[in-house]
């Protein structure tokens, strides 16, 4: 977990540097609910959070799970299993459809 957090932090720094090079990137707020911080730190390391909001609310929990799994297995996101579960639950509850 600690290792993952450190990796996420270094990725976040690299991403922040890139964002600064482009221009300031406005914050895209997400719903304040359990799991919110994990989603913000893990997902925003690689992409802005408007990806989540625009892809809502049509995705079921299963589809969100497939998306998060793809981020980890295909795109190599350094997210451990407990964090992945937190993210999937948060997205399904707050940005999903039944």
């Amino acid at each position: 977990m600690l290792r993952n957090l450190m990796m996420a932090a270094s990725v976040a720094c690299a991403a922040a540097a890139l964002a600064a090079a482009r221009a300031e990137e406005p914050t895209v707020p997400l719903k304040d609910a359990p799991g919110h911080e994990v989603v913000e730190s893990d997902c925003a390391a690689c992409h802005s959070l408007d990806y989540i909001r625009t892809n809502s609310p049509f995705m079921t929990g299963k589809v969100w799970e497939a998306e998060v799994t793809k981020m980890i297995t295909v795109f190599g996101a350094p997210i451990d299993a407990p964090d992945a579960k937190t993210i999937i639950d948060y997205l399904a509850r707050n940005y999903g459809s039944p």
Partner: protein
Amino acid sequence: MGSAIALGASGLLARAAGAAEKVPLVSGLPSGVYDTATLDALPGKKALIKLSYRPPNYETPASYFASPITPNDAFFVRYHLTDIPAAIDVNSWTLRVGGDGATGALEFGMRDLQSGFEQVELAAVCQCSGNRRGLSDPHVPGVQWGVGAMGNAVWKGVRLKDVLAKAGLRKEAVEIVLDGADGPVLDKTPDFVKSIPLWKALDENTLIAFAMNGQPLPHFNGFPARLIVPGWTATYWMKHLTSIMVATKPFDGFWVKSAYRIPTGKFPVAQHFQTQVTEINEPITEMVVNSLIAAPAEGHKLHAGQSVEVQGVAWDGGYGIRRVEVTSDGGESWREAHLGKDYGRFAFRPWSFRFAAAKPGRYKILAKASNVIGQTQAETLIFNPAGYHNNVMRPLTVTVA
């Protein structure tokens, strides 16, 4: 740090002021798009419809398509990965050409391209494979594009086949592998690398372009050079080109092997990427015939007896548009629109139609394009999991009072 915060704050104020302007989104998108998309300007660009900041995905508002040539500063922007060079120095930029299917390995600078090869100009539509994904029914995950992930420009460059000839091709060559300067922020994320069949690379219309509408390419459209694959979707139009490798085996990278695929045999396309076809799916290739109504705006009002010029564009995979028909009575009667200037078979074909109604009411105007090989737009969606090839006719509502 203090100055960075100050800059950020003023930037936010500027953006907040811009947010008051209504975002010209089409109907039918996921509801999350309507409370998230903003009008935002990337450096060197006009305010476009921002779907995501990082990577930047910005679409062109539909009103721009009332003109058949899309301005450089309004041309859509699409990236997969976020490590995008802030700037590229054209004087130190080099393009590597080689690979196991080539007899030699060479490097070209911009001056080499501009002085050592025949210079070619052509107009062609650059359309994201996922244009209109946001209109899929049911919705599918991905960038939720409306109708503006496309544009038409006059590209200038050199033929890919001429550059490949300098390097020399071995008879075992099957595909050409393309890479650009942008990449992922994580080492484990597959870099955006694409391949095209050798026969498509040798097509005289496939170009390495360094100019667009008479100007150098905008940074966010691939400066200083990008590939132009007329007729095929933009996924193959590699931006910020750095390397062109001739391969003797089918390329097996993620962005060709797994992404940008359509169910095999489901769409009426003539050109296939044969070395990558499986029983289940195949790479997306040529664009399907399509059209867009760009003017007037949705909900336009006019008086009985008054008329309005309905304008738009039509395009296909490079066969050429034969006709555009328009109906305002739900398809009972169709009338041919006037076709405007022909910029070539790969370009937008402008069209116009004068609409007038004697009786008050709400009229739904539909346009239907057909190409010279007899293909026409779909009446109902051909669903596919990635939301590609959506060429369903889209109604424009006009109110006559």
